[in-house]
């Protein structure tokens, strides 16, 4: 019988593609022969838009890049601006930034886990449990800065304002209750035989390949490479808190899932330590909204929930950046997609893509 490979387009409008991502798959029956990712459907030109807005206004653009983790985008941008202008945020501002960033990491990992399990066929239940907890953290963000997703919380030289009085008891309540919720989610899924057989040993990335492809974040650590910028190049007050960097050994889909669960636990620990250590004081080094940094360039990488995120800024001495370039972890983590998928079935392609946890707002910018 004469057969020929068939080309299947998954996306851009497909619920499993987490936005507008298109996978052009060459299939032999259920088996994947070739993968061609097509990106750019959500391109909004943020880097160009930044060139005609001054430094404070660009903060609102960074909210919209990785819209699941706006706080860490803010943090990466303001840290880069602070290196450019030579401003240092006061201690309380740095602690508030770390608390907000770790809460955002919890949110991002919950979303990643929930949608990963949804892709796996665990329809709606784990996702809804994860979303339920995410809502409570977003309520905290609303208390802090008046918005839930597009936060615009951080400013060059700190955060825009101190946390309100009702924030601290609410934070303590969530920090107390989150570990119990993680136990619940793990009880629901982590030992489930169907999940184990679908994810263990699937789409393995070796540590060597991951390093060669510049992959960062939980995807890299799942392959057993211990690289976390919070430890390797501490920013803000990460050098004053102690936490573990969870590592996987296989580099398969299951490791990428379980690493995120473990990182949520570590984030809770970091927040607890920050709440103990934080002291009253100023939260913002300067009230200025317009900056004229000296001519130069800056790049401060941070450990965003999805990997190394950095804003490369070039200043020509004016009030707006001459050039801004974003090192987006989602885009670079996609580079091994072909290697991950070829040889596996179509249903594994959806799961493996979900396990990288990409955000199309950040891939296309």
């Amino acid at each position, binding site marked *: 019988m004469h057969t020929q490979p068939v080309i299947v387009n998954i996306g851009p409008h497909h619920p499993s593609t987490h936005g507008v991502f298109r996978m052009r798959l060459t299939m032999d029956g259920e088996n994947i022969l070739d993968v061609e990712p097509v990106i750019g459907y959500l391109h909004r030109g943020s880097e160009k838009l930044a060139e005609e*807005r001054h430094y*404070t*206004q660009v*903060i*609102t*653009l960074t*909210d919209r890049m990785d819209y699941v983790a706006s706080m860490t985008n803010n943090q990466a941008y303001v840290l880069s601006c602070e290196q450019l202008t030579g401003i240092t945020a006061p201690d309380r501002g740095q602690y508030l930034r770390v608390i907000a960033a770790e809460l955002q990491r919890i949110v991002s990992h919950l979303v990643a886990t929930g949608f990963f399990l949804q892709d796996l066929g665990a329809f709606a*239940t784990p996702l809804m*449990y994860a979303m*339920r907890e995410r*809502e409570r953290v977003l*309520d905290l963000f*609303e*208390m*802090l*800065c*008046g*918005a839930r997703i*597009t936060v*615009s919380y951080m400013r060059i030289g700190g955060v*825009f*304002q101190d946390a*309100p009085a009702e924030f601290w008891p609410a934070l303590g309540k969530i920090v107390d209750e989150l570990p119990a919720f993680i136990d*619940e989610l793990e*009880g*629901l*899924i*982590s*030992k*489930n*035989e*169907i*999940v*184990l057989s679908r994810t263990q040993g699937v789409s393995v990335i070796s540590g060597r390949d991951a390093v060669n492809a510049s992959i960062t974040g939980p995807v890299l650590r799942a392959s057993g490479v211990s690289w976390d910028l919070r430890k390797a190049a501490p920013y803000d007050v990460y050098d004053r808190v102690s936490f573990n960097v969870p590592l996987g050994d296989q580099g398969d889909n299951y490791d990428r899932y379980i690493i995120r669960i473990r990182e949520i636990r570590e984030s809770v620990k970091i927040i607890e330590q920050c709440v103990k250590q934080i002291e*009253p004081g*100023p939260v913002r080094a300067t*009230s200025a*909204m317009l900056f004229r940094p000296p001519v130069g360039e800056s790049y401060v990488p941070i450990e965003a929930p999805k990997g190394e995120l950095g804003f490369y800024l070039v200043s020509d001495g004016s009030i707006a950046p001459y050039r801004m370039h974003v090192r987006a972890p989602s885009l670079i983590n996609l580079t091994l997609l072909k290697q991950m998928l070829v040889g596996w079935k179509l249903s594994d392609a959806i799961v493996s893509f979900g396990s990288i946890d990409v955000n199309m707002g950040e891939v296309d910018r």
Partner: protein
Amino acid sequence: MYGIGILRGLVVTARNLVRKPVTIQYPEESVPQASRFRGQEFTWFVDRCTGCASCAKFCPLGIIRIVTDPNGGNEQDGGTYRVDTFDIDQARCMYCGLCVEACPYDALHMGSNFEAAQYRRQDLLITKEDLNGRDKHPSTWFRPQLEREKFDPFAGESKKWEDTGREARFWHPQRPEMLPDDGDTRPTADGEYK
């Protein structure tokens, strides 16, 4: 044994079956909002606005349009500028709040409403008359003076500009003598300025 993990998952599901639902039936009931919530229904105090257009300059999208007209002659004789036009194009507003942060006279505040849908696009343009005519329920976002008096924007009464303290001038000092001696522009813990 195969199946233990699935049973354990079912126990979690069964426990959640008897738990109180967290779903909110939105149009009938709504989630409690934080007082810092940034929403529409901007509060604008015409008696405080000088038409300096700081808000328009700091808007990342440039959607605030201000036209001023000299009124009452010479500035030295007490003449002021009249604000002829104060339009906010809410269709493009992203509620970042930078206009409120930039206002040096505490004249502009964020609002707390989020139900902004309109049938016609031109209805999304907020004009000076809309801003003047509506009740003032300012959000406490970037307004520590409201936060300190525990102002609740969702309570009934409309806020008057005389009762709303001024604090932004400490953030945007125009003359050095407006600054406290040590250059510290923030209030102390009990809300007093040094």
